[in-house]
Every structure is written in C-alpha cells, then in structure tokens.
C-alpha cells in the first residue's frame, strides 16, 4: 500500500504565473495547437470519422444526419414485436412487460383467437399492443420481463422527435413492422405451439 492520503498542495505561484502573461502564452499555445490541427483537418477534409475511430485527435464531430454511428448490439432503441413463423405476433399478451414497465407506457388488450383459428383455446394474442414511445424511458425492463422473446429493443433506431403527441403511440402493426438492426423479424423463442407443425401433437387414442 502506498500513502493512504495524498494532500493536494496548492501550486506555488511563480512570478510568471503572477504576471498572467506566461500562462496566457502557454494556454494560447495549446489552444492554437488545437486550432491549427482542426483547421488543417477541416480544410483538408481529413478528420477521422468518430464512428470508426472515436479516440482520434483533432475534430471529433460526427456529422450526424450524413454520418451515422451504428449503435452497439446492446443498445436499447425503439421497440419491436417479433414474429412467429406465420407472421403473427410472437406475443401472447401475458402483460409481463406492462407490469415491469416503470413508466406504464405499454398497453395490451389480450384476446382469444377467433373461432376456427388453430390456436383458439391454446393461446391468446394481443388484440391491441400499444407503446407510448414518448412516455417510454428505454430502461429495457420490458425486454427483460418478456417470457416469450416477443418484445425487443434491438432495432438500432432511436425514437425520432415528432411534433404530435399522438404520433408517438405505436400500435401493434407499427411495432411489428420494425426489423432488428440486422433486418430480422424472428424471435429466438423455440417454443412449439400446439398449432405449429413442429408440435408433437396430441392424440388421445394413439397415446404418446
């Protein structure tokens, strides 16, 4: 162990410090260095793209609308709803996400599949699935709470600014139309559903 405490001594003021000028010149030297570096890069149009090299010296500006930074894999962006094989929502309206949501920005109206649907009686689905993206705080709790891998925030899109509060209400269709950062819509949930071909099926007479 080295010294436990370290007293931060006040620097001794030299005559140079007291006269303002020396430090002014030094400071100017530093800022001029930055200035010339920046100017040279701007004129030569040779500055590094921070999306590629964030630690580069000189101009560090990401010229946003033209240059974009791919968001990290884990970054939590706009929500999406994953699809099943047949394109219906993976969500079964269990309401876990809306329960876990601290902002209560998720509204789900669960419903049963209509008569004649192969999933009737087995599964439910969200008749309405609405997220108020304005109210959302992007904490990711809904994704964590989803037991079906139905809701995800890996779209790599940030929610854009709008000028109407109603436009932030994303309904089921909109949420389902948004792909992941890699353009996918599928879910990783391997669950066999009673209606799916992969399901072993039931046959009371045949037994199991």
């Amino acid at each position, binding site marked *: 162990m080295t010294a436990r405490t370290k007293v931060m001594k006040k620097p001794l003021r030299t005559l140079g410090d007291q006269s303002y000028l020396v430090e002014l010149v030094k400071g100017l030297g530093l800022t001029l260095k930055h200035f010339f570096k920046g100017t040279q890069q701007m004129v030569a149009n040779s500055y590094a793209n921070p999306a590629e090299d964030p630690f580069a010296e000189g101009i560090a500006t990401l010229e946003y609308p033209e240059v974009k930074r791919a968001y990290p894999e884990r970054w939590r962006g706009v929500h999406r709803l994953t699809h099943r094989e047949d394109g219906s929502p993976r969500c079964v309206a269990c309401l876990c996400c809306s329960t876990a949501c601290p902002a209560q920005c998720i509204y789900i109206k669960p419903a049963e599949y209509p008569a004649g649907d192969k999933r009737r009686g087995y599964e439910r689905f969200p008749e309405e699935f609405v997220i108020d993206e304005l*109210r959302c705080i992007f904490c990711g709790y809904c994704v964590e709470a989803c037991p079906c891998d139905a809701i995800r925030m890996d779209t790599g899109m940030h929610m854009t600014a709008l*000028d109407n509060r109603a*436009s932030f209400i994303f309904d089921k269709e909109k949420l389902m139309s948004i792909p992941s950062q890699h353009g996918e819509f599928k879910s990783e949930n391997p669950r066999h559903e009673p209606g799916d071909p992969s399901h072993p099926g039931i046959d009371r007479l045949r037994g199991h």
Partner: protein
Amino acid sequence: MADVELETRVVGGGDAGFVTTKFEALLAWARKYSLFQYPFATACCGMEFFAAASPRYDIARFGAEAPRFSPRQADVLWVVGTISQRQAPVLKRIYDQMTEPKWVIAFGTCASCGGFYDNYATVPGIDKILPVDVMIPGCPPRPEAVLDGLMLLQQKIGDGDRTTAVVKNTQLPDGAEEKLERLYNIRMRP
C-alpha cells in the same frame, strides 16, 4: 383519438393567413438557421443537452449553438428535463418573456409527458402549460435524437406549416424505409 388536436403556433409574427411571399420565405430561412436557444435545463436531460453541444455531436453545426440566457434574445426554448409543479410558474414566465417568434422544444420524456414521474410533484408534460412545437422522446434522448428534433423544428420553421411531421428515420436498414413510411402513416418530408 378525436380529441388530439395539433398545437397551433405562430409563425411570422402572428399575421397568419396571408400569401407566403419571397420575403416570408427569406425570413423563415433566416430564422431556421439562426436559432438562439434558451436552455431551460433542469435535470438529467441537461447532461445529454451538453452532450449534443459537445464536440462529438456539435449542435453548433446547425447554427443553434448560441445559448442566450436572457429569454428576450432567445428564439427557441429548450425545456430540458423534468418540470416540477414548483418549477412550472418559472417556466411559464420564461416562456411569456420570450419575444416573438418563439418556439418550444420539449426535450426528453419528462418534459414531453412527465414520463415515469407521474406523481404529485411533476407536471405531466409541459404542453399542459405552454404550446410545444417539437417533442423529443427518450430518457434522456440521445444526441442524434436531439439533432433530429432540431432539424424537425428547422423544417417546420422553414415550411411555416403546422402539420404533423416526422424526421426521416436515419437508422433504418436498407429497404425498410418505404415500409416504415407507409406504416407511420405520417407524411415523410422530402
């Protein structure tokens, strides 16, 4: 959602309804590239507001760098962060002190709708107390979204129109744009 009406805002000093002249267009052009801002920064979003002004994102590129802490000289009021009930009169007063033309950007979830602070202390969205032109979602919004919001405001100023608008989403993978446009059901601007 019949009760959702768009906010009206005054462009060009309030003489709405006359023909847009070249002069008006010039004025709108000038205004959109010279947005002096009053940052009413109260909370966490202030950090991202700094970040948007930081070298990395540099809001100055849009000509909106100059913070004027006197509301008289500011064009756009950034309400950055949670507005508590106690703060509301202050905000209202600042807004009233601003000179025309003026715009308001609600920065972040709290300012836009109260966010997850739906409690006794917080105003559930500043549109409860003053007209808002642009709302930037996110808690806090990342600087890209802030710039989106600013560009949206510039578009609105430039067009002088009051319809719903959406900034073209810039983070979409190829090919998804038309789909989004169709599904957003909102006119995408050129």
